[in-house]
Structures are given as structure tokens and as C-alpha cells.
């Protein structure tokens, strides 16, 4: 994985963490699984409100736009409003949600572009 890819992924982690903490999440697990071609960020949350996840999914499941990524990636991770995630949604390919008995598992998948 290239240095540029690592820089972008760490910024995504920072922004999602900021977003969750701004929305009152105190305990959650953040995992990162990287291969040469893809990165998966897996976030395990306790007791989430369905509305919250739905709103997040609506934002995140936007078509990826490389021209936004090359232009605005440096802004990621620098939110000061809790309702953002606008740019990050254009840098990931998909957001999948899985519910277990008491946990919500969010998987963000990104195909690595910088080789």
C-alpha cells in the first residue's frame, strides 16, 4: 500500500472517530484490515439508534468521486460540525451494516487507488 493511501485511510479513521464521538459514542472498536487492493474499516458499536445508522448510510452510500478525493482529501478528519461526513462518503466504495444481538457492525470498504 502506498504512503498516500495510508495517509487517506488514517484521515478517514480520524473523521469517523470524530463523528461517532460527537454523536455521543464512548465505547467502540475500530479495526482496519488492509490488503494491497482494498481496505476495510470495521467499527463495532453498542446500542445504536436505527435512525442514526440510516442517516449515516444515506450519506455514505454515495458514488465514489476521484476528482473530489484528489481535490479535498486533506479536509477529511477536520470536521467541526457533527453533521458532516460529506467528503469521506465520496472516498469509500460501500458501507455495510450488520446487526447482532447487542452490537452494530459497520464495514467501510475502499478500493485502493494509489499504487
Amino acid at each position, binding site marked *: 500500500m502506498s504512503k498516500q493511501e495510508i495517509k487517506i485511510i488514517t484521515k478517514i479513521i480520524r473523521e469517523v472517530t470524530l463523528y*461517532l*464521538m*460527537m*454523536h*455521543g*459514542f464512548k465505547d467502540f472498536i475500530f479495526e482496519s484490515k488492509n490488503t494491497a487492493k482494498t481496505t476495510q474499516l470495521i467499527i463495532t*458499536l*453498542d*446500542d*445504536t*439508534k436505527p435512525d*442514526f445508522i440510516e442517516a449515516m448510510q444515506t450519506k455514505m452510500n*454515495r458514488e465514489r*468521486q*476521484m*476528482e*473530489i*478525493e*484528489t*481535490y*479535498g*482529501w*486533506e*479536509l477529511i478528519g*477536520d470536521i*467541526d*460540525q*457533527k453533521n458532516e461526513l*460529506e*467528503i469521506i462518503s*465520496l472516498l469509500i466504495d460501500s458501507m455495510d451494516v450488520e446487526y447482532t444481538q447487542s452490537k452494530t457492525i459497520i464495514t467501510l470498504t475502499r478500493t485502493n*487507488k*494509489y*499504487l
Partner: protein
Amino acid sequence: MKIKEFVKYKMLLPVIFVALFGLSLVFDSPSNIYTGYINILKSPSVLISDYVRIGGLGATLFNVATIILFNIIMLKRLGFKMTGPIFAGVLTIAGFSFFGKNIFNTLPIYLGIYLYAKTQRLEFRSFMIVVLFSTGISPIVSFLIFGTGWPLYIGVPIGIIVGTFTGFILPAFSAHTIRFHKGYNLYNIGFAMGIISMLYAVILHSFNVNLNVGGPTSEAYHSELLLISLGLSTLFLVGAFMIDPNVLKKYPHLLKSTGRLVSDFIRDYGKAVTMLNVAFMGYISVAVLVILNLEINGPVMGGILTVMGFGAFGKHPKNALPVMFGAWLGVTITNYSLDSVGMVIALLFVTAVAPIAGRYGVIIGVLAGFIHIIITPLAYVFQGGFDLYNNGFAAGFVAALMIPILEAITKQKPEEDGQ
């Protein structure tokens, strides 16, 4: 293709091309357009070079139309869907084709970005936002070829090499500068180019090259340009209602956006709502000029088109009017004057800092506009006129100055609404 689909298609940009191309033939004969167009291509093009004065209205409209056509074809070949940034980029290029951009001086910059994309092993289309806004620094190409007095066999290669080099460094540099103002300067690439221009100005100055080659403007076509501005705004207004007759009810949602980079009104609110906003931004620009009894020349027309373009990419009446008022206040109570065309266009381009009003409210927006207008002339002196987006250069400093302070004093408590 049904008429509704036709209106939605590329956000009316092909219609604008046809209209401006047709009008160029209305205002001037083909031979005059040809002569004027050659004068435009040979102009040093630094701020402020009014192509309406240099080439006449017909040749200028022809220049604008060719630039729009070139970029529409490029976007189509690269398979782009119309988004807010893309629309803003094309209209900004069109606007600045009234005072500084032409097909000749923009191509080396594009070439530089293309080469940068190759080195990054990414597609050229990945840098399209930078591509569209990059040409604000195209006067460096024209100036080195036609403005220095150097023979062409020296000026042409140097102009092309420097233009290509500038395009090559711009993507990485503009991605970096966006952090400086945290996305609150909508003309981020203008800020990046201002810094690069500053370097070029210093180098040329140190070799005793005279940089002051901008010229007077022409207000001879004020009425025609006023009608074109109103006509284009009305085109978008009618287009919005044709796509969606209920567009007015949906419009207030857009006004809630801060407009901070990288917002895309087409993606977030749809084409009809965005087109209505574009129309309103056009009307507001014209209204400000008419109320203050200011005449439209090439640069001012460029300002109107740019403000309209950014009606899809961050600007709306609620965040734009406070900063425009602040700018007017700045001119009114200081020793600046609207007799200067630089100040007149700054009244429009001050909307670069509109997201500050969108995020922090009217009073802070007025303050941002005020600071912007008094910084702008100083920014011009620094960057030597090679960066056509001088207001973007100034706006970067305004936002960088205000945002850290505003973030520090604005408290926002986390809400327990996720769990």
C-alpha cells in the same frame, strides 16, 4: 430527447455555448471577430486585461464560446456526469474568458496536470476539479510569450514550459492549501495559484521585467452584457421550473447548507433546485451592480458568471449576501472606491468567503466581507496579476485568519443522539 431531459442535460451548458456563439456573430462581423480574437490570443492577459476592450464584444463572446465548447467536449470524452464542482468550473472558465483565459494560454496548464496524473498512475479525469480551476494562472503563459518583450523563440518555449510546470505542481499544492483555510475559501485553487504567482512575480521582478501590463476596461457594452446576464439567469430560472414545477418549495433546504468545500448542490439537492439557485445568484449579482450604479465590463461579466457557477458549488443568497454587504461596507467607510474595477469585481468575488457566513451567521459574514475587501488590493500587489483569481488568494488569508479563532470560541457540545 424530451425538452425536460434536454434542459437537464449538462445543466444547459451546450445552450449557453450556442447562445454566446450566435451572439458573437450578432455583435460583430466574422472578419472583426477574427482580428479581435487574434488580439485576444496575443494579449499578455494579466489582471486586469479586459478582452471586451482588447478584442471587441464579438471576439470576446467567440473566445468564451470556444472555451466552453472545448471543456464540454473534454468532459464528455472523459465520461463526466454533471456535478456542482464541474458546473462551477465550466462557468468560471467561461467567466474568466472575458478577461484573461483563452484556448492558447490554458492548454500548457492542462498538459502539466495530465503529466502529473501520469506520474501518480491515476487517470487524468481524477484531477478534473483542479483542471477546470487551474487556468486562473494561465496569464503566466501569455505574459512570458507576449508581455515580456522577449523574442518569440525565447518567449514561446519558456511560456509553455512554465505553464506546464505550473499545472504539474498545482494538484498537490492545491490539495495542501485547502487545509490552510479549512475549506472556507471556495476559490481554494485561486489561493494556491496566488502563492505560485507570488513566486513568479518575485523572480521576474528580480530580473527587471516590468509586470504592470494590465490595461483599462471597456464599459461600452454595458447594456448588452447586462441583458446577457439577465438572459442567462432567466434561462436557468425557466429551466428549473421546467424540470420541477414545485422547485420553489424544495429550495429552502439548499439555503441551510454552509457551502463549505467540497459541497455539491447538484448531488445534494438535484438539478432543478440548483438551477434555481444559479438563477438567483445571477439576479443578485446584477441587482448589486444596478443598485450601486456600476457598469459591466469584461471582468465584471466574468464575476457574474463565476458567482452563477458557484451557485452549484457552495454559494446561495443566504451565505452570499452578508459577505457582499460587508464588502460594500468596507468600500464605503474606508478610503477605497468603487471607481476601481478591482473593487467592483471584489464585490462579486467576495462570495468566495460565503461559507463563513453559512457556518457562523450574518454578523461574522459581514465581518469576513469587510476584511476581504480591504485585503484584496494588497493581494494583487503580492501576486503580480498572474493569478486571475486574486480574490481567491485574498479569501484564503481571510478564512485562515478567522476560522481558527471562530472554531476556538464556538462551543459545540457532543450530543447523545447516536445511542
